[in-house]
C-alpha cells in the first residue's frame, strides 16, 4: 500500500469525523435551544458555524490534493467522492442548525405559547438520523446507512403533520402566527437536516458497495419501500 496515500485517506477520514461531530453537536444544541428557549446555546451554535466552514474547506482542499496527486481509483476514488459530498451535506446540516437558532432567537422575544407540534420528538428522530448516518460512515457499513434511509419517511410525516396543525393554529388564532411560523420553519429545518442525512447514507452506500441508490436508481440495491414490500 502507498503509505503517503493511506495517510492522506486517514487524514481525510479524521477530518470528516471532526466535521460530523461538530454538525451533530450543532443540531443537538439547536434542538435543545428550541426546547429550553436558551439563548446561550443559540450563540454557541452561531459561533460554531465558522469552525464548520473552516473544516469544510480543509476537507475539500485535502480531497482535491489527493485526487490530483494520487489519482485514486475504485474504492479509494469512491471514498474520496463520498467524503466530498458528505462534507457538503454536513456543512448544510450546520446551516440548518443556524436557521433553527435564528428562529429560537426570534421566538424568545415573543410570549411563550403552547403549540400543537411535538418538536422535541421530531428533533430526537432527526438527531438519531444524524448520529446513525455518521456511524454508518465510521463503520463503513451499508446496512446502517440503509436504516437511515428508512427513517426519512417518519420525519417527513412529522413535518407534514406539523404543517397541517400549525396552519390551523394560524387560521384559528392569528395572534400567535409568528410563533407558529417559527415552529413551522424549525420543523422544516429539521426535515431538511434529515434529508441531508439520507444523502450521507446514500454516499456511504456508494462508497462501500459502489451502488448509486439515489432517487431509487439502482435495482440491484432496492430502495427502502421495495425492501419492505418484499418482506
Amino acid at each position: 500500500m502507498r503509505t503517503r496515500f493511506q495517510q492522506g485517506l486517514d487524514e481525510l477520514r479524521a477530518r470528516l469525523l471532526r466535521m460530523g461531530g461538530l454538525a451533530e453537536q450543532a443540531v443537538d444544541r439547536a434542538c435543545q435551544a428550541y426546547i429550553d428557549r436558551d439563548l446561550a446555546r443559540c450563540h454557541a451554535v452561531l459561533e460554531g458555524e465558522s469552525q464548520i466552514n473552516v473544516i469544510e474547506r480543509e476537507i475539500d482542499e485535502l480531497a482535491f490534493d489527493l485526487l490530483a496527486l494520487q489519482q485514486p481509483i475504485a474504492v479509494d476514488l469512491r471514498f474520496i467522492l463520498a467524503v466530498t459530498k458528505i462534507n457538503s451535506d454536513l456543512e448544510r446540516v450546520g446551516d440548518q442548525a443556524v436557521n433553527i437558532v435564528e428562529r429560537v432567537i426570534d421566538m424568545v422575544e415573543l410570549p411563550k405559547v403552547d403549540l400543537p407540534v411535538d418538536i422535541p420528538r421530531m428533533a430526537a428522530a432527526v438527531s438519531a438520523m444524524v448520529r446513525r448516518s455518521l456511524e454508518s460512515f465510521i463503520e463503513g457499513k451499508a446496512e446502517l446507512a440503509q436504516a437511515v434511509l428508512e427513517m426519512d419517511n417518519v420525519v417527513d410525516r412529522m413535518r407534514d403533520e406539523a404543517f397541517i396543525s400549525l396552519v390551523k393554529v394560524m387560521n384559528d388564532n392569528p395572534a400567535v402566527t409568528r410563533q407558529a411560523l417559527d415552529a413551522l420553519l424549525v420543523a422544516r429545518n429539521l426535515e431538511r437536516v434529515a434529508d441531508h442525512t439520507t444523502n450521507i447514507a446514500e454516499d456511504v452506500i456508494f462508497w462501500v458497495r459502489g451502488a448509486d441508490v439515489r432517487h431509487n436508481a439502482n435495482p440491484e440495491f432496492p430502495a427502502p419501500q421495495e425492501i419492505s414490500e418484499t418482506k
Partner: protein
Amino acid sequence: MGVGIKVQKLNAWYGKSQALHDITMEAPANHATALIGPSGCGKSTFVRCLNRMHETVPEARADGKVMVGDLSVYNGTTAVQIRRRIGMVFQKPNPFPTMSIYDNVAAGLKLNGFRDQRRLDEIVERSLTHAALWDEVKDTARKKSGASLSGGQQQRLCIARALAVEPEVLLMDEPCSALDPISTGKIEELIFQLKEKYTIVIVTHNMQQASRVAEFTGFFLLGRLIEFDKTEKIFTTPSDKRTEDYITGRFG
C-alpha cells in the same frame, strides 16, 4: 476493419512451468482491450500467444483455441499467416537502425515480395499518416534513418511499420513505458484513432493509461485471468477483491 479475438481455454508453458491457466476471454473488434497485472502475471505471454510469438522461446508451448476473426491461430495456420493479420508493437521502440524511415515502413511488404513502387509509396505514406508521424517526417523519410528519430517518433514509426502490412489486430506490449508524457499522449491519441480500423490489445502497467484508452480491461494474476469487464467497471467497482487490491496499490 478489425476483427474480434476469441480465446478459449488457453494454456501456456515455459518448459514445465505453466505460465497461463485456462484463459478464456474475448477482445471485441474495433475496440481497445487493456491487460493489466503485476510483473510475471502472464499478460505479455498471453499477447504473445495471440500471434504465436510465444512458441519462438525455446521449450515454450501453448494449447487452446484462439480465433482471430475466422482464423484459427493454433489449427492449420502458419505463424507467418497469423502475423500478417496481427501486428505487434513492443515496449522499446525497435526500428531497423540502418534503414531509412521509409524503408522501415516498407520492410514487411518488401520481404513479402511487394515491388510496385508507386503503390509502395502510397502505403508508406498512408501508414505513417495513420501512425500520426507523416507530417513530421514527410520531407526526410527517405534520407534519415529510423534510429535518428526521438523515442516517441520511433515508437510511432514501429506502429507505422506494423500497419503497413494491413493487419486486422494490433498488439501493443507496454508501448509507452519508455516514452515521456508528451509522446505517451500522442500514442494514446493514436490508439483512439486506430480503433476505427483495427482491434487493439494493449498490455500496460499504467492504470491511468488502461483507463484512458481501453473500453475493456482484463486483470491477470499468477497466470490466470481474474477479472474481465468494461474498463469503467474495473476501475470504479471491480467485482473481485484481488483486482481492487491490485489497482488501488494494496497488493501483497
